[in-house]
């Protein structure tokens, strides 16, 4: 089985919780014989597992739609990225001054042209601006932090090297910009401009600090506190379709600005989406002892313990899969809940018991005894050859039903015991024989009676009295259960009853339309479909007599062959070699006495050989046999 095998447990070594998980004490002492029996019962898993392997292999090229969707979702969930949060940490201490800065715009922007163009020192492009409104926003909604998503560290390194990415802080509050009357709300739309305070933190520096922190790639949060100095400037905002550009012009004369304001900004970054946060994830399993491995693997969220029960649930084998994978088809199910849906729906030959505690998620697996044991152990058919083997169970059930139904409607008199006595083979064969094949005989008298079926467990007297089919059906239903106990008696009685039904009705031979004696009705022999060889021979001879240009011997040969072929039912080309040998043996003594006949036979064999119906070896065999007779 796939997954990581664990020791086949005598569960004593496990912790209390494990023992709870596999509640029966498997410390039971088992003898060698029992061990063999246990092995055998474990082997019962082989066939369903093999079946699921076949199905899985077929699904590799063309996976199920649902599983494909699930796969994409899992991938998306596991994509590594950095969540960055920016907020003003010194806002409360700074008091009024900082308060003035609000609303503060924070942008993650990319420098478009590193060289200052004309009057503007820098042009940045951004897609989203976060507004920090401080303690009390205009509309009463307070927004204290700005969130950004950054790619994972490896990809961020490239961005950082280029140095074009930066976090911009823009505040209109502290600037003398009244003459433009900029409405702060308009910064999102339209081409506007105005005086403001601004500052930036290049991503490069952030990256450097993140890189230094050792726990960043283990998923720990890294906080960086930096002081930014807000400087006055003139900005112009341009919005072109999706892209928004902000152009910043730092005044050449710094004196125009009022005193610069300093703001303390905390930037915390956290890497998310990595599959494992546990420190054990980087360890390999090789150098850890199995007992501690059990502890480790329980710690990981995607690990699920599978307990395979066998030997009447007395023993179990355990294995663990990662990432909520199914142990049979290796499909990752994303969550324990997903596993819970996947297993019963896809692997319905097994029973699953789901078990969740704080420490672990476990699934107890056992074979569905009622479907499996009988079918799987019935015969040693390789499931590779019989792939659709398992579905037959359902068909069988349906067929049984329809048999019961048809026996209620049709004139299958022997069916009552046949359906119910599956185990009693000797009898079912007998009842099969005594049944009347409906095609072979037809009945002229008592057609109305054909709807009546004898329910098991009622006496012949009852049968005659109850003509109502509904009544018969209800009796049949109620006597089904007790029938098992009284089987033996009922067989004999139902046999008698079938007999009496057959006696009541007149049957006729199909060809001659002669009435059948009861003895014939009940006998095994039914020769109605057989060809009447006497008549057929007579007619064949008469047909051959019509030939004018054929000698007497040839006619006799033809007749012998025709009647042989008819009697032995030589129908296919493939029968010919056998037929030739058998014909030589059967008619050899006659043919040896008349050499003309033997020559006719040889010529005929040559003809057969000419047509590719007879091989040379068989022809040789026939001729050597005839030669031996001639001596």
């Amino acid at each position, binding site marked *: 089985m796939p997954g990581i095998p664990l020791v086949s447990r005598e569960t004593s070594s496990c912790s209390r919780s494990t023992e709870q998980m596999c509640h029966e004490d498997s410390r039971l002492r088992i003898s060698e014989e029992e061990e063999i029996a246990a092995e055998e019962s474990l082997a019962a898993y082989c066939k369903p597992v093999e079946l699921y392997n076949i199905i899985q292999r077929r699904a590799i090229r063309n996976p199920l739609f649902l599983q494909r969707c699930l796969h994409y979702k899992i991938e998306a969930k596991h994509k590594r990225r950095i969540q960055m949060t920016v907020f003003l940490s010194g806002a409360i201490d700074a008091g009024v001054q900082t308060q003035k800065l609000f609303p503060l715009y924070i942008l993650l922007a990319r420098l478009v042209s590193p060289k200052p163009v004309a009057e503007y020192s820098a042009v940045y492009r951004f897609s989203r601006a976060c507004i920090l409104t401080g303690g009390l926003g205009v509309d009463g909604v307070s927004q204290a932090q700005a969130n950004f998503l950054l790619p994972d560290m490896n990809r961020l390194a490239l961005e950082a090297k280029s140095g074009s990415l930066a976090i911009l802080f823009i505040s209109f509050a502290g600037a003398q910009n009244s003459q433009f009357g900029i409405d702060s709300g308009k910064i999102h739309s339209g081409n506007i401009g105005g005086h403001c305070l601004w500052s930036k933190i290049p991503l490069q520096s952030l990256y450097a600090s993140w890189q230094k922190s050792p726990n960043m790639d283990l998923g720990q949060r890294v906080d960086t506190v930096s002081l930014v100095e807000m400087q006055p400037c003139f900005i112009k905002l341009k919005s072109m379709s999706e892209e928004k550009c902000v152009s910043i012009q730092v005044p050449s004369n710094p004196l125009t600005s009022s005193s610069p304001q300093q703001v303390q900004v905390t930037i915390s970054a956290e890497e998310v989406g990595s599959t494992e946060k546990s420190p054990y994830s980087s360890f390999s399993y090789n150098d850890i002892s199995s007992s501690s491995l059990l502890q480790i693997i329980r710690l990981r969220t995607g690990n699920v313990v599978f307990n395979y029960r066998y030997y009447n649930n007395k023993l179990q084998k355990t294995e663990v899969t990662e990432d909520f994978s199914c142990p049979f088809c290796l499909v990752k199910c994303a969550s324990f809940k997903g596993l819970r849906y996947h297993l019963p729906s896809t692997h319905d030959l097994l029973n699953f018991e789901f078990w969740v505690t704080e420490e672990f998620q476990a699934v107890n697996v056992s074979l569905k005894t009622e479907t499996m044991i009988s079918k799987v152990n019935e015969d040693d058919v390789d499931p590779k050859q019989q792939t659709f083997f398992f579905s037959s169970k359902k068909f069988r059930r349906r067929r049984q039903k329809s048999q019961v139904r048809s026996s209620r409607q049709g004139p299958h008199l022997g069916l009552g015991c046949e359906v119910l006595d599956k185990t009693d083979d000797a009898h079912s064969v007998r009842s099969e024989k005594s049944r009347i094949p409906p095609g072979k005989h037809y009945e002229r008298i008592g057609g109305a009676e054909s709807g009546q079926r004898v329910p098991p467990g009622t006496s012949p007297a009852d049968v005659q009295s109850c003509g109502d089919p509904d009544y018969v059906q209800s009796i049949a239903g109620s006597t089904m259960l007790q029938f098992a106990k009284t089987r033996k008696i009922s067989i004999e009685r139902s046999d008698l009853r079938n007999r009496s039904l057959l006696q009541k009705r007149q049957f*006729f*031979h199909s*060809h*001659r*339309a*002669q*009435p*059948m*004696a009861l*003895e*014939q009705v009940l006998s095994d022999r039914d020769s109605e479909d057989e060809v*009447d060889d*006497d*008549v057929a021979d*007579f*007619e064949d001879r*008469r047909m051959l*007599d*019509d030939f004018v240009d054929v000698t007497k011997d040839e006619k006799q040969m033809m007749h012998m062959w025709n009647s042989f072929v008819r009697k032995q039912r030589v129908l296919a080309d493939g029968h010919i070699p056998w037929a030739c040998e058998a014909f030589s043996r059967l008619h050899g003594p006659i043919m040896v006495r008349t050499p003309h006949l033997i020559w006719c036979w040889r010529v005929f064999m040559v003809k057969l050989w000419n047509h590719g119906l007879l091989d040379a070896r068989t022809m040789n065999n026939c001729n050597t046999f005839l030669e031996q007779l001639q001596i």
Partner: protein
Amino acid sequence: MSKITLGNESIVGSLTPSNKKSYKVTNRIQEGKKPLYAVVFNFLDARFFDVFVTAGGNRITLYNCLGDGAISALQSYADEDKEESFYTVSWACGVNGNPYVAAGGVKGIIRVIDVNSETIHKSLVGHGDSVNEIRTQPLKPQLVITASKDESVRLWNVETGICILIFAGAGGHRYEVLSVDFHPSDIYRFASCGMDTTIKIWSMKEFWTYVEKSFTWTDDPSKFPTKFVQFPVFTASIHTNYVDCNRWFGDFILSKSVDNEILLWEPQLKENSPGEGASDVLLRYPVPMCDIWFIKFSCDLHLSSVAIGNQEGKVYVWDLKSCPPVLITKLSHNQSKSVIRQTAMSVDGSTILACCEDGTIWRWDVITK
């Protein structure tokens, strides 16, 4: 399939009565309201040459023909099945000489009545549809042959109730078989005709062992190895419409279709190739107003004359011993208007009975000069 040979023109008889003999109505019996389909004299047993039997509805009645035109009813049997309608009846004999009467009709079941004990001796079941004619082998009167709507002809042993042979299949009739007749001297041979317009001659020679076996069979009749005979030895197409009656006349055959005439023709079989051969129509006996089917003719025991009724209730009596054919007489009576289904001639031809669709039996007796 045989062909009519050219060059031998058949001779048509003249409808002018010669009045060699003349008959007069001596009796008329109204048996019932149901049509009578068959009337037959007993030719098998010299003790009972005067006895005849009629069949109609579900009733079979035996009469004795007395002198002076008197008729006395002897026995009457009514089938328990009211739906039964007998179409045909024939005399037969048990092995110990007991006279039997075998009758069949729409139900397809042949009732064999032992006349002496006045009981049903056997009921022969097997035909899948109505029985149109029953004939008895005069040389072995335990054998009867039946023609049926189920397109088969069956040979039975009435003594043991065994169905010996079935003549049907690949070479058999393709439509209802209406009439059968045993060859008078060749015990293996019989002729059958029917709605498929053909007349077939069959041989049982190869199967005679089964016929013999049927006499000694002591087991259940249904276990008898009934054989199918599929090919006749001769098939003639001399008629173009339903052939509803045929009788052997020596090695010749008298047959009638619905074309107002009876033909006398000779089947010319080739000795070694069955199925092939020719037929030669020799004489034609015109019967006016006789173009509906199921009108049967009859001959006296010596085959010297043939009598046939027609739709208008008239009877034509032809001399079979003369060539060209001579019409002996035409029997008509102003009260006889109904269709005459069958006639019966007494052994010497002195009495002619006619059974009609209105349920009457007419008796004509020859006027002795």
